[in-house]
C-alpha cells in the first residue's frame, strides 16, 4: 500500500446516511472490520458489525489518571479521542504463537505457523496512530530482520483514517508533529463535519486500494465550502491540545541528564504497573515463552507483550540490571523520547496522551521533560578521566 499524494488532490464528500455502505463494501471485499466501540465504560477497538457499533454521540473526557465517557448531544460517529487500545492490538497482537515442535525419538520436528488471517480494515485511525503504526513498521519491517506475522497483517490492512474534530485532554500531537491532520499512511482519510443540519464526511484518497473502495460508495466531489469546513475543524483541533512537549534537542537533553534527581522524584510516584507500556501505541517489547504439554512430546513457543517496567525484564546473572523503579522509569522514558531516535530515526512518542490518562498516579511525560529541561544538568556527572584513568 503506497501512499500517493496525487490521489488526495481530489476530495470527495460522503454523506452520513451512506456510511454503512463503507462497512458493507469492505466486508464484501473480505475485510474483517475493526474500530472503536464502547465496552466497560471506555472506547476500545474491537470487531464492528455495523455503523451503530461505533460510539455514536459519545465523547471522552481525559486527564491525568482520568477517563470518562459523556454524551455529546449530537450524533457524531468519531467525536472522541483515543482510548486504552491502539492498533498494535491487531498488528502486533498481545499473544502470538511462533511455532510448534513435536518430539520424535531423539529428533525434533518443528512446525512453522502459516500466516493466514483475514485482512483487516481499521476504521477511525487518528493521525497520531498513523504515525505510531509507521513507528512500529520501522521496528518490524525496517531493520535487518522482518517479522513475517507483522508483515502479513500490515500489508493487507486497509486503513480509514479520521482527522480529529476535537483534541483530548491529554493530547499533544501538535507539538510532536504527528497531527491532528493525517498526511500519509492511509487508504482513505475522513473528516467528519456536522454543520448547519448537515452530517457528512470529507474524503481524501491515499492509495489505489482506497480509490477502489470509494468508487463503490455514493459520493460527490467536494466543494470549496466543504474543504474549508474540514480545514477549519482540523485547525481548531490543533489549538485545543491538552498538553505540549518541547522536543528541542530532547535526545541530548535526556542523554546528559541520566543522573538528574528528577528520576528519583518520579520513581517515588511510579508504581511500575506497566499501564503506560500497554496503552502506548508504539511500545513493542515482548517476551518469549516455551511451553510443553504434560506428555512431553509437544512444545510451543509463544510471544507475549512484555514491559520494561517488570523486575525480570532485565534479569541477568542472578539479578536485574534495572532493579530499582527509578532505573525502569528512566529506561522507559529515555527509550521513548531519546534512544529511540538513535535506534529508528524518529521519536518513539506520537503525542497521543494515553500514558498520561491511564497512569493511576497521573505521571505526565510532558511534565517530566519540562522538569528536567528547567533544571538541566543540575547534577553534573563527569565522565572525563585524568591521565591515570581515574574519574
Amino acid at each position, binding site marked *: 500500500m503506497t501512499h500517493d499524494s496525487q490521489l488526495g488532490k481530489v476530495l470527495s464528500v460522503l454523506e452520513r446516511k451512506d456510511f454503512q455502505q463503507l462497512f458493507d463494501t469492505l466486508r464484501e471485499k473480505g475485510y474483517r472490520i475493526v474500530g472503536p466501540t464502547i465496552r466497560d465504560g471506555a472506547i476500545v477497538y474491537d470487531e464492528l458489525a455495523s455503523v451503530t457499533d461505533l460510539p455514536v454521540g459519545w465523547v471522552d473526557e481525559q486527564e491525568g489518571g482520568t477517563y470518562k465517557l459523556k454524551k455529546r448531544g449530537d450524533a457524531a460517529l468519531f467525536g472522541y479521542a483515543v482510548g486504552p487500545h491502539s492498533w498494535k492490538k491487531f498488528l502486533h497482537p498481545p499473544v502470538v504463537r511462533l511455532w510448534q515442535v513435536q518430539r520424535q525419538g*531423539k529428533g525434533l520436528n518443528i512446525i512453522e505457523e502459516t500466516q493466514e488471517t483475514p485482512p483487516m480494515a481499521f476504521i477511525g485511525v487518528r493521525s497520531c496512530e498513523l504515525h505510531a503504526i509507521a513507528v512500529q513498521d520501522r*521496528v518490524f519491517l525496517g531493520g*535487518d530482520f522482518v517479522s513475517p506475522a507483522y508483515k502479513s497483517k500490515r500489508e493487507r490492512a486497509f486503513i480509514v483514517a479520521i482527522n480529529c474534530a476535537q483534541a483530548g485532554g491529554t493530547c499533544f500531537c501538535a507539538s510532536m508533529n504527528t497531527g491532528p491532520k493525517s498526511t500519509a499512511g492511509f487508504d482513505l482519510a475522513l473528516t467528519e463535519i456536522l454543520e448547519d443540519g448537515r452530517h457528512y464526511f470529507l474524503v481524501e484518497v491515499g492509495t489505489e486500494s482506497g480509490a477502489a473502495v470509494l468508487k463503490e460508495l455514493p459520493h460527490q466531489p467536494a466543494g470549496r465550502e466543504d474543504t474549508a469546513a474540514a480545514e477549519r475543524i482540523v485547525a481548531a483541533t490543533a489549538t485545543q491540545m491538552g498538553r505540549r512537549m518541547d522536543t528541542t534537542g530532547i535526545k541530548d537533553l535526556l542523554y546528559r541528564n541520566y543522573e538528574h534527581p528528577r528520576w528519583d522524584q518520579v520513581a517515588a510516584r511510579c508504581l511500575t504497573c506497566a499501564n503506560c507500556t500497554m496503552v502506548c501505541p508504539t511500545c513493542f*517489547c515482548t517476551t*518469549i515463552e516455551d511451553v510443553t504439554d504434560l506428555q512431553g512430546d509437544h512444545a510451543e513457543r509463544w*510471544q507475549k507483550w512484555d514491559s520494561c517496567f517488570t523486575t525480570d525484564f532485565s*534479569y541477568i546473572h542472578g539479578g536485574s540490571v534495572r532493579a530499582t523503579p527509578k532505573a525502569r522509569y528512566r529506561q522507559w522514558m529515555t527509550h521513548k523520547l531519546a534512544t529511540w531516535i538513535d*535506534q529508528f530515526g524518529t521519536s518513539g512518542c506520537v503525542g497521543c496522551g494515553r500514558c498520561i490518562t491511564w497512569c493511576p498516579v497521573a505521571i505526565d511525560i510532558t511534565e517530566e521533560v519540562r522538569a528536567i529541561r528547567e533544571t538541566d544538568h543540575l547534577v553534573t556527572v563527569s565522565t572525563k578521566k585524568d591521565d591515570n584513568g581515574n574519574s
Partner: protein
Amino acid sequence: MSTNPITDSGPLLALPRRQPMVPEPYCVQRVRQETRDTFTLELRSSNGAARPAFAPGQFNMLYVFGVGEIPISISGDPTSSKALVHTTREVGPVTKALRNLKRGDEMGVRGPFGTQWPVEQAVGSDVLIVAGGIGLAPLRPALYAILANREKYGRVVLLYGTRTPEDILYRKELERWRARFDLNVYVTVDRAVGAWRGNVGVVTSLIRRAGFDPQNGIALVCGPEVMMRFAIQELQKRGVGTDRIYLSMERNMKCAIGFCGHCQFGPSFICKEGPVFRYDKMETFFLLREV
C-alpha cells in the same frame, strides 16, 4: 542497515536461512566438561548441512525442547569447518538441560547473531586479549582467527584471569599456546591454595607486563562487567586509546533479532549493535548504573 551511530564493526554476517525465530535442528556430537561448572557443546546440523559461517564474537540462540532458549557465544574455530562449538556455565534450567543432553539428542539453533571482534581491523597492529573467567570462551574464536593468519599481526598477547586454578578454562590449550614462540600467554588467579606456582593477583596487573605497544595495539576485553571496567581503566592508564579497546557486553535476551527489546543498553541492542562494542562508542552508557 541500522543507522545507529553506535553500530560498530560492520554489517551482520551469515543471516539465518529460515524465519529468524524458528530454530534449525542440530544434533549433539559431544558434551565436554571443562571445569566444575563449565562445559562445551559440540553440535552438527541434523540436515547434514555444513556448519554455517560465523565471525568471532557472534553468538547463537540455543534451544532445548520444552525448556527454553538462551544466547551463548560461539567458542569454536571459525576457520575450521567441523562442529559448531559453544562453551557455557551451568547456571539455570536451560544450561542445566544443555549439559544433560547426550550424543545424538536434537536441539535447536538460531543464528549466528551480533557483531564481531575486529580481527580484520587489527591487521598490522599488536593485539592484546584480556579475558576473565568464562570471558575466554567468546574470545577464543578471535585468537584462532588471528593465529590462522599470524604473520599479519604484531605482538599477540593473551592475559587470562579467573578465580582459582581449578577454574582455568581450556587449560591444556592455554599451555599449548603458551609454548608457542609467537604468542605470549599470562594466566593469573584471584586465589590459590596449595601447589599453584603461577601468578596470583588480578588480571589487570598482567596488563603492565604484557609488552605490547599502546599506540599501535588493539585490546579485546571480555569477562564480568566489573572485571572489564578495571581492565579498561588499566589499559587507559597504559595509554591505549578508547577507540582501540573492544569489549563484549551481555544483557537479558529473548529474540536476538531486535524485536523483543530486552537486550537494550542505552541506544544499542546487544543483539544488533553488540555484543562486541568499540569502547569509545558506548563509554558514556557503560559508566552509568542500571542502564
